[in-house]
């Protein structure tokens, strides 16, 4: 049961092969077995999960089930879920029980999905390895000495370890795609504005986007269909006609133009990753695609631009954590200023503090034009590069991450080393484009490699088609790590 995809579970539930309660119990049992070794979940609440499963079964009995009613789902602990501890991987919110639901959680609940728990993540979504969580690191199910990637490391590891058939994640600089690549699963960051950020604890508001993580492209589409929708409470939420993102899965790929940016295949890319990605491209040629060499000349600016913009926005977004209305408050303080300073010093981890300091500095008097405004202008150059590229190709492909999973602790002493893990993913967030990662092979030591597919704005249906056709002729997405179901 628990090795089934979301699509298969949907069919099994509809055919009454199993009930939602049986399914939920099966996953709860497996989580109880494996979670202490992998650290995927911060919070599990069997009673709450089973109650939701019972409601889903009742809904099915009343003839009111939808395609995903009763299907289990894990939520990244960045989404407020009413009555659930919502920690954002931080000591600052380690006591915060959310009094309301995020829009994403509302939509999944309305579809009848069953919450298995809240997954571990880098603190406040800042990280690429899930090592900055207050609740301990997540271990990669393929090799437990290795990181799963981040910041949606818990969601990625849970799906890879078959502790959830699918999970929600968020992606600001690569935090869905990079952990998907490092754990051999699929993850998609939609076009900015498609999924509401209401109730999703904010890191960098102009970059954050929620998206699905699962084991197949088809499953991504099923969950994306549930997650996308206008929400008046998010001022950046787009109003667009509803669409079925899986409508084009079966289209043949003849005539597809795949752009390969030369900047994605330059120095810094590991040989194993390059080989697996090139094999994937060869497979796409067999499926009828033609390859177009393209260039994204300002790609090299994406990491510095991001590390000005994202910390700047984070410094503003995290100023709400002051010990007054919610979250951690210091036990001892002399006055209000001291209360703020100690609560924040105690509640935030080192990486979060580092980024707040960077952000505060680049927004401060005398530096705002030199750093923040300059970065916003360079951001437009980066977006323009993609716009030009999409005149010559339909989708862009390349590696998701320059390396496969690295050892826990290997990069945590040098922040810049860690930042470079996102070198291929960041530009996509800066431009607001949709991007996804799907598994395309393994390195010499059996660690997964991810292929990144970048589409033009609102082209998710085509991207899922492109991924699905590859998954019909390969089986990377069906491989499982040892020691899971």
């Amino acid at each position, binding site marked *: 049961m628990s090795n089934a995809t979301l699509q298969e579970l949907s069919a099994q539930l509809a055919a009454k092969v199993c009930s939602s309660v049986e399914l939920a119990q099966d996953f709860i049992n497996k989580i109880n077995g494996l979670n202490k070794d992998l650290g995927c979940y911060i919070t599990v609440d069997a009673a709450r999960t089973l109650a939701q499963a019972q409601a889903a079964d009742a809904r099915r009995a009343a003839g009111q089930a939808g395609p995903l009613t009763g299907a289990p789902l894990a939520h990244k602990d960045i989404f407020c879920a009413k009555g659930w501890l919502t920690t954002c991987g931080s000591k600052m919110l380690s006591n915060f029980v959310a009094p309301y639901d995020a829009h994403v959680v509302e939509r999944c609940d309305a579809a009848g999905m069953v919450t298995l728990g809240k997954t571990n993540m880098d603190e406040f979504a800042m990280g690429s390895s899930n090592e900055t969580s207050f609740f301990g690191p997540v271990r990669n199910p393929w090799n437990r000495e290795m990181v799963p990637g981040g910041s949606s490391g818990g969601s990625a590891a849970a799906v890879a370890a078959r502790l959830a058939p699918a999970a929600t994640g968020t992606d600001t600089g690569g935090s869905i795609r990079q952990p998907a690549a490092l754990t051999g699963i699929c993850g998609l960051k939609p076009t900015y504005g498609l999924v509401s950020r209401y109730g999703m604890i904010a890191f960098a508001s102009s970059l954050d986007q929620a998206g699905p993580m699962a084991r197949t492209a088809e499953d991504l589409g099923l969950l994306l269909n549930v997650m996308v929708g206008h929400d008046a409470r998010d*001022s950046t939420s787009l109003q667009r006609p509803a669409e079925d993102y899986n409508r084009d899965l079966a289209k043949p790929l003849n005539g597809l133009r795949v752009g390969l940016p030369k900047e994605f295949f330059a120095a*810094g890319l590991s040989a194993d990753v390059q080989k697996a990605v090139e094999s994937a491209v060869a497979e796409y040629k067999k499926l009828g695609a033609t390859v177009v060499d393209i260039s994204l000349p300002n790609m090299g600016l994406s990491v510095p631009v991001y590390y000005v913009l994202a910390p700047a926005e984070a410094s503003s977004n995290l100023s709400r954590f002051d010990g007054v209305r919610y979250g951690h408050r210091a036990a001892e303080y002399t006055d209000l200023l001291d209360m703020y300073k100690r609560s924040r010093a105690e509640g935030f981890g080192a990486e979060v503090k580092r980024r707040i300091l960077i952000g505060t500095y680049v927004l401060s008097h005398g530096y705002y034009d030199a750093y923040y405004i300059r970065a916003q202008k360079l951001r*437009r150059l980066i977006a323009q590069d993609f716009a030009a590229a999409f005149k010559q190709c339909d989708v862009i492909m390349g590696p998701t991450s320059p390396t496969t999973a690295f050892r826990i602790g290997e990069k945590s002493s040098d922040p810049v080393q860690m930042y470079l893990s996102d*070198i291929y993913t960041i530009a996509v967030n800066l431009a607001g484009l949709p991007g996804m990662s799907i598994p395309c092979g393994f390195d010499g030591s059996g660690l997964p490699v991810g292929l990144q597919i970048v589409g033009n704005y609102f082209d998710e249906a085509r991207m899922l088609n492109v991924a699905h056709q590859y998954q019909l002729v390969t089986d990377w997405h069906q491989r499982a790590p040892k020691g899971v179901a």
Partner: protein
Amino acid sequence: MIPYAAFVFNGFFTPFMALTLDDVQRAAHLARIAVDNAEAETALTQLTRVFGLIEDMQAVDISGIEPMAHAQDLMLRLRDDVVTESDQRNLFQSVAPEVDAGLYLVPKVIE
């Protein structure tokens, strides 16, 4: 260690302005985060490295380019000026560190 210098940057190790401990402490004060001297030293080393990364932005010609805050050119949506929320103060204050009579309690500001 990823040899990213060839791929991305030149001048990585030459920051155009050196950060000082004062800069760190000033940012910490603005951000309302207590940073002791030892932490400030570590932060300075790490921030200097990050600013080395950022410096490569400075060389690019940006004349005539508009800043980009959002991928789509959107107008901020307006709504009618009517009350749509209900009073959920008790619920929202149930997670507060210290409340009394519907008020959040903090140390006195004016002596």
